[in-house]
C-alpha cells in the first residue's frame, strides 16, 4: 500500500469547525463553566464543583417537570405517529386531490409557534373561542385556565394539530417511493390489505418514520413557546415542562449556576433518549425471526 499520508485534508474542514466552534461549542463550554461556579456578580465567582448538579437533582420541582415532560412526549409519539401514518395512507396519491391535501396538511407547519399558541388560546376560551364555547354548550365543564387536566389535554391537542402533518408528509414521501411492482406482486401473492401494510408499506416507511419519531421526540421534549403562550405553565404548574422550568431558573431568578447544570442534564437526557430510540428502531427492522415451524 503506497497511500500518500498527509494531513492537509484537515484544512478543508477548518471553516466548518470554526463556525461550529463559535455557534455551538463555545456557548456549550460557557454553560459548563457556569455549572461549576457560583456567580455572585459579573466580576465575582466561586468554584463550587458539582454542588449545583447535586442540588438540582434533588429539586422536587424538577422531578415534577421531568415526569410531566416524559408523559407528554410519550403521548405525543403515541398519538402523532399512528395518526400521521394513517393520514399518509389515506391521502390520495394522484391528481389535484393529492396536491390539495398536501397544501392543507402543510398549513399548520407554516404557522409560527407563538401564533399557534395564540390561536389555541382564543379557540379554547369559553366566552369567545369556538372550541371552548362549543364544549361548554355541550355540557362539558371545560376551562383550560383553571382545570389542570383540561390545560394539559389542550396543549397535547395543540401539538397534535401542529405537528402530525409533519409525520404525515414524511410518511407520504415514504409511501410514494414504493414501486408499483410491489403492490402488483402483493396482489399476485394474494396478500390482504393488512399484509400489504405490514410487509410492504411499513418496512418501506421505516426510514422516514425513524426520522419522524426522532424529530417529534426531540421537538416535543423541548416544547416551550406554545404552552407558554397558551397557559403560561399553569394552572399551578400542570403544564410547566422542562424548558419552561429552565427559563424560570435562568431568566426569571438568575440562578445561572443551577440553570447551567440543569441545561447539561437536559441535553444529556435528549441525547440518551434519541440514541436509545434510534438503536431500538434500527434493530427492530433487522431482526425478523424466521417463522419456519418444525413440521419435517
Amino acid at each position, binding site marked *: 500500500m503506497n497511500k500518500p499520508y498527509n494531513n492537509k485534508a484537515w484544512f478543508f474542514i477548518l471553516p466548518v469547525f470554526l463556525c461550529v466552534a463559535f455557534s455551538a461549542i463555545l456557548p456549550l463550554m460557557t454553560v459548563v463553566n457556569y455549572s461549576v461556579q457560583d456567580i455572585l456578580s459579573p466580576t465575582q465567582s466561586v468554584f463550587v464543583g458539582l454542588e449545583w448538579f447535586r442540588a438540582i437533582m434533588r429539586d422536587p420541582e424538577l422531578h415534577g417537570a421531568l415526569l410531566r415532560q416524559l408523559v407528554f412526549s410519550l403521548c405525543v409519539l403515541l398519538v402523532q405517529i399512528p395518526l400521521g401514518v394513517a393520514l399518509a395512507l389515506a391521502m390520495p396519491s394522484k391528481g389535484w386531490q393529492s396536491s390539495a391535501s398536501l397544501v392543507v396538511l402543510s398549513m399548520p407547519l407554516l404557522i409560527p409557534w407563538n401564533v399557534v399558541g395564540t390561536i389555541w388560546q382564543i379557540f379554547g376560551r369559553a366566552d369567545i373561542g369556538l372550541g371552548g364555547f362549543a364544549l361548554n354548550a355541550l355540557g362539558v365543564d371545560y376551562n383550560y385556565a383553571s382545570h389542570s387536566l383540561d390545560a394539559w389535554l389542550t396543549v397535547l391537542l395543540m401539538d397534535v394539530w401542529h405537528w402530525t402533518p409533519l409525520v404525515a408528509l414524511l410518511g407520504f414521501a415514504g409511501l410514494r417511493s414504493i*414501486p408499483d*411492482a*410491489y403492490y*402488483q*406482486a402483493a*396482489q*399476485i*401473492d*394474494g*396478500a*390482504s390489505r393488512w*399484509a400489504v401494510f405490514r*410487509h*410492504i408499506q411499513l*418496512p*418501506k416507511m421505516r426510514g422516514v418514520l425513524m426520522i419522524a419519531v426522532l424529530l417529534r421526540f426531540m421537538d416535543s421534549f423541548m416544547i416551550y413557546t406554545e404552552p407558554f403562550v397558551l397557559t403560561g405553565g399553569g394552572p399551578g404548574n400542570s403544564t410547566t415542562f422542562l424548558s419552561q422550568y429552565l427559563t424560570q431558573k435562568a431568566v426569571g431568578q438568575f440562578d445561572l449556576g443551577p440553570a447551567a447544570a440543569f441545561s447539561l442534564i437536559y441535553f444529556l437526557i435528549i441525547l440518551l433518549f434519541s440514541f436509545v430510540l434510534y438503536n431500538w428502531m434500527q434493530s427492530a*427492522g*433487522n431482526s*425478523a425471526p*424466521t*417463522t*419456519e*415451524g418444525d*413440521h*419435517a
Partner: protein
Amino acid sequence: MARIEFRNLGHAYGPHPSAPSDFALQPMNMVWEDGGAYALLGPSGCGKSTLLNIISGLLTPSHGQVLFDGRDVTTTPTRGRNIAQVFQFPVLYDTMTVYDNLAFPLRNRKVPEREVHQRVHEVAEILGMTHTLKQRASGMSADAKQKISLGRGLVRKDVSAILFDEPLTVIDPHLKWQLRRQLKQIHQQLKLTLIYVTHDQVEALTFADEVVVMTNGKIVQKGAPDALFERPDHTFVGYFIGSPGMNFYPVSLDAADEQGIRIGEHRVEVGPAQVARLKRAHGALRMGIRPEFIELAPAGASGALEAEIVNVQHLGTCQLVSGTVAGHPLKGKLAASVALQPGRHWLRLARPEAIFFCNDERIAQ
C-alpha cells in the same frame, strides 16, 4: 396450468378509442397453448407489459375477453386467477426470511403450515436455495432475489401460468445465462405455461419454443426462432430479429419486363414467377435480404448490384461490411476468408433467400 385465449382482445388507456393509434394493444385473437414456453419480443413501449398485465389481471382490458381453459376471466381480479408474475426488478418482502418470502403466497391462501413447509422445501430444492432458507431476503444478491420472486410463483401448485416481465434486466451477464438455463429446466420439469417478455432477441430466441414479436401494440409474427429468421412476416421482424437486421430496398417494376425488377436505377434479374407475384401485389414493394445471405459476385452477374463498401470490420469468424447500394444502406456478413477492401464491389442481393414485402407484409411464395 391452463390454455390462455384472447378473443378480440384490445386495450386503450383513453376512454373512447376510434383510430388504431388510440389503442395500446390492437384488437387481436391469440392462443397461448398449455405448457408452452413463449417469448414476447418487442421494443420498449410496444404494449408487451400491457398484454402481460391483462393476462395477470392487474389491468382489465377495454375490449374483448380473456379465457383460461375456456372460462371467461376478463373481470376476475388477480387474486382469483392463479397467475404468477416475476417483475423487472426483484420484489421481496424485505423484513422476511427467504423461507417466509416463499411461504407468503401460501399463507395468504390459508394453506396448512405442514403443506407450506413441504412446498417451500420442494421449490427451494428446484431453485437450489435450500441452504439459504433461513437468511434474510433483503441482503441477498440480485439474482438470488429474482430467484426468490420466481419461487413465490412456483410455490403455488395450482398456478395457471408464470409471466416474466424482463426478469433478467438487473442480473449480471454470466448469471443471466445460468438463470435462463435454470428457467428452461424448470419449464421442462413442471410443464408450466411460461410467457417471457423481453426486448433482447438473444434472450427470446434461446428461451422460447415460440416467439411472439410485437410492435406498436400489434402482434406481427408468432413462430419458432428459425422461422422468424428465415421467413419474417413483417419488415419489423426482419429488422428487429438478427444482428444486424435485414437490409431493405424499394422495388419498382417495369410493365414490359417479365424477368427482372428495378432497385433504384439498376435492373435485377429475379425470374418470371417472382415478377408475376410482385405484379399482382398492390402497394409499396420492398425487397429484404439478411446480411448473412449477401455474397460477392462477378461483375454484371444475374441478381447482383454494384455496391460502395465503406467499412470492413473483421469479427474473427466473419467480417461485417457496411456501405450503400443504389443509395440505400447495406450491411453484410461475409465469410472471414474472403479478401475484401473498401471500394466498389459487385454483390449478389437477389438470392433465393431474399424476401419481398408489400406494405411491410411478406408476399407469400
